[in-house]
């Protein structure tokens, strides 16, 4: 009786400790988000004088101005288009390559893999100018395709590295079974490898979606027309050269954060789904 009581209290107190720790971290994570949302309802004069998280007056106009006057809709759609294209491109191209690096043998495999790894490390400063001239020569400057290809390249190395690490960890038995059943290599990649790598694919999707969603410098440099610009470019103009309209900026930032948060909510389910698969595979 006594020992079981002891274990019970011990378990409860450990749980309480864990929850206290998790809650403390969670509060620091939530505060900036709430502050951003609260600020988006304030006015330029009250944003720094009234520091409470619940504004005394809600100025919904900030959102209206951000959406209506700044042609947010157009930029928003552009951003969605670029993000989806780039992420799909990266998922396909990098998972094919990572699968080959993990499973197949071919001459130069290590050299290629190390090359991708090295590329991940070496940032090219002034690569914007180089990319600009390159796209100009390829007649891809000022086109969505040029931008998408550049952005796929940006996320490629890291994604290959992430995926290869997880492919290496995955058991090969299911693939062997599929091969015996007469499945082609491409078929195994599509029907077996990809489904099993759900959790890491979700990470790759979120990682690259966030990178594309927040990118603006390359877009600003290679596009000459407003109609092709992504959302972040519009947000940068809210942050004025001298005068920053903070509430408007916060409204814009809040709107811009919503799709990424939704995407994450969807994707994190796949990270949990991995549990059941692991069980089946094992």
């Amino acid at each position, binding site marked *: 009786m006594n020992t079981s009581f002891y274990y019970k209290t011990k378990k409860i107190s450990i749980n309480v400790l864990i929850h206290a720790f998790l809650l403390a971290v969670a509060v620091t994570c939530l505060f900036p988000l709430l502050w951003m949302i609260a600020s988006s309802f304030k006015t330029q004069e009250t944003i720094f004088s009234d520091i409470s998280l619940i504004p005394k007056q809600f100025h919904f106009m900030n959102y209206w101005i951000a959406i209506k006057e700044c042609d947010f809709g157009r930029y928003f759609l552009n951003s969605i288009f670029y993000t989806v294209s780039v992420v799909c491109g990266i998922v396909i191209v990098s998972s094919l390559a990572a699968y080959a690096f993990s499973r197949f043998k071919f001459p130069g495999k290590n050299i290629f893999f190390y090359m991708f790894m090295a590329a991940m490390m070496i940032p090219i400063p002034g690569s914007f100018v180089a990319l600009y001239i390159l796209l100009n020569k390829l007649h891809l400057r000022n086109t969505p395709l040029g931008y998408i290809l550049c952005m796929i390249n940006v996320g490629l190395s890291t994604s290959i590295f992430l995926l290869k690490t997880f492919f290496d960890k995955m058991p090969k038995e299911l693939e062997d079974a599929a091969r015996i059943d007469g499945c082609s290599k491409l078929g195994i990649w599509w029907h077996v490898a990809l489904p*099993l790598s759900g959790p890491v694919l979700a990470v790759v999707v979120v990682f690259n979606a966030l990178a594309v969603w927040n990118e603006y410098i390359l877009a600003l440099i290679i596009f000459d027309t407003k109609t092709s610009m992504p959302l972040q470019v519009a947000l940068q103009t809210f942050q004025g050269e001298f005068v920053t309209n903070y509430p408007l900026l916060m409204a814009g930032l809040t709107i811009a954060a919503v799709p990424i948060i939704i995407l994450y909510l969807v994707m994190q389910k796949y990270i949990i789904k991995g549990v059941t698969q692991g069980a089946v595979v094992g």
Partner: protein
Amino acid sequence: MIGGIKNFKGVLVFSLLTLASINLAGCSSQPSTQAKGKSISVWHWMTDRQTAFEELAKRYEAATGVKVNFELYAPSDAYSQKVRAAAQGINLPDIFGILGEKRDFSSFIKAGHILDLTSYMNENDQAWRNIFFPKALALNEFNEDNSYGINTGTYGVPIDIMTIQMLYNKDLFKQLGLDPEKPPVTFQEFIDIGKKIKETKLQGMVSGWGEVWMIDCLANNYAFNIMGKDKVLATIRGEVSYTDPDWIEVLGLFEKMRNSGVLSDGLISMVNKTAEQLFANGKAVFAFNGSWCVNVYKGMNPNLNYASMLPPKVSDKYPMAIWGGAGSSFMVNARGQNKEEAVKFLKWFSARDQQTYLSEKTNNLSANKECVGSISEVLSQFAKSMDFATHPNIWGVSEFPAVIEALDKGIQTIILGEKTPEQVAAEVQKVKVRELDKKKNK
């Protein structure tokens, strides 16, 4: 087993299909950038003026039938990269602005990107030239003896002027027991106020000294006051050492300011936007800022009771100098297909009525001296101090960037209390000698 993941793949296929369709639509609706008919494109970075620019473009189209597209690219760093990239690809628009020092400006001219406007300025008895404040135009001019090797001439159209000086909060002056109409005139008076500020919870002077160029600006102001323009320029030419007692005195001023409490605590980790918030919200007694701040403070706190003042002088030997001149300028693309149209537009754009509109809309000082816009009192104070204005870009020589960096960083370490003025002077001079040697060896 893999039901969930089948969804995943479904999503993938679905998005690819959707994309394919959007992409097709996107391609077909792509507007042609080479629109027929007359149209001029302008690139700029001035976020707060885009609306006013667009309105002026509308008026111009109504008057002449020529369409002007103002394309805004912000922030200015990204804009700067875009212009440089476009220059490499020979894709610059008809009209654009350049951010950077005179050296960069001269490189753009050498590379053949910028049209020499001298002949247009001089037409009809210098009619166009005469509408500008000479000091505003000076930033866009290269004189006969310039060290950049550029042909004498005018290469840009100034659209506004700015000066950088000190501001003080009148209400806080009263609170400190000071006369709000009598800002400190001498450096000693300024330092003494610092002692009073120290006793209160107020902040002293705020400014964007985290980004170093504004430190450089104040140091130069005092160098002019202590040793005069000729000696400053002689230092830049390498004829006077930075270890000269006059320069050590300049550096020593920062140590004095630091010790007196007249500087705000977090001054050297401050960006200008933070400094502006603090001053606008009445938390800081002094600010060191450019004339653009009038518009900023108006937006943050319309009731702010403040005035501008010259930096308090140290010596009576030479006049105090502040930085000022053209704020922003437009250049015409020498390779553009609409050069003549672009020049015509800029003539119209810089004329009195348009400049009056722009000045009133954006609280900027126009470069056009005939501009009659009603401006606020503080802004007119800034305008009056134009008499004291100078700018590195009109000196005809430039200091090596590495030396400027060593000086600015050195002043930061003085304010941090890590180094003495003598140490910093010696370090700066070391960099100077190194750079001079490098230049000789080329």
